[in-house]
């Protein structure tokens, strides 16, 4: 995504090259062009571009990708933390 980059070295994205079958789905579904195919294997080009949407993990038929899926939203984070402190509180943030 041109002109934008968020915090570095935080993304939880992991790719297991052993398990990868080189189908290219991750490259196809990633909205931030994190992956590329090289020698019939997926490769992480730039993990810092990852927004942890989980499209690659959901669509990897070899289960070679792992990412902590979530929405990068402060209101959602606050709501999540409040939910941990106050059990029984309905979990709904200002996020979509």
């Amino acid at each position, binding site marked *: 995504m041109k002109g934008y980059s968020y915090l570095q070295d935080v993304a939880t994205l992991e790719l297991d090259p052993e398990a990868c079958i080189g189908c290219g789905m991750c490259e196809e579904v990633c909205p931030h062009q994190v992956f590329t195919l090289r020698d019939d294997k997926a490769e992480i080009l730039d993990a810092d571009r990852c927004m942890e949407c989980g499209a690659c993990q959901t*669509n990897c038929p070899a289960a070679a990708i792992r990412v902590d899926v979530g929405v990068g939203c402060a209101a*959602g984070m606050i709501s999540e933390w409040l939910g941990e402190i106050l059990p029984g509180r309905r979990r709904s943030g200002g996020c979509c």
Partner: protein
Amino acid sequence: MSYLVPAGLYAIGAPTPGSPVLVTANYKMSYDLVRGALAGRNLWLLVLETNGINVWCAAGKGTFGSEELVARIEASRLADTVAHRSLILPLFGAPGVSAHEVRARTGFSVRFAALKAGDIPRYLDGGMRTTPEMRELTFTFRERLVLIPVELVIALKGSVWIVPLLAIAAAWRDGHFSPTAAIPAVLAYCGAVAAGTIVTPLALPWLPTRSFAVKGALVGVLWSLLFLAAVGWRGSAAAATVLLVSVVSSFLALNFTGSTPYTSRSGVKREMRLSLPVMAGALVAGFGCWVFAALR
């Protein structure tokens, strides 16, 4: 006013069993955008039940997901209606829909076409090929501008409590109540809200650092300096203004993370862990300065 379109299979124009099948959410705006982009064409539109939520948000929640797609294919008897076994989905649906799972369960292959509905005609006419531009996310000035009303509404909800309390506190002077004294304080606050919800989002790519909290704080400091130049406050009153205004702006800017298409959960978590304690400290220091200024 309803924002829901009943889920199910819709015919656009006069589709045949060979016509393409597109899939979307039952949020009225998603449906209208897709239908608008496809005007004059003949095809099928399979609308999933996402409870009136757009594709991206519903995919994150899983309602625009494999389960619902499989169920909707069966409920609409799609396999009896069309001769082919291919579905065209928005790229934003990929977090929820697993192409290989849907194929294994229904026989329908899933193709993620483009991010924007406006690109569907080019996709269909270009031999169902996704070009790099159709995959490229953007966050233009205009795209940021349309988000501002939502940010303002969220900020106003909090302001319903903050503004009256702020006005009362500011109007209390030497044991007397002078309503005019509340005006500068409320003005400073309104400027802080504008700094966090209007200026920071609009200037987002040009503001320094990757951190939304820092971007917002910087705009807040700028506004407070302009404000102080106008009202002429000095000393601890000025310090209180800079601190409190930048905290409000910073917090609201941090909130904008939820409206952008590039912030990760881990990133927001890290940023909040670092910035919230600083904001809390600045808030306490700001109120301290204010009390000190009022007692002098």
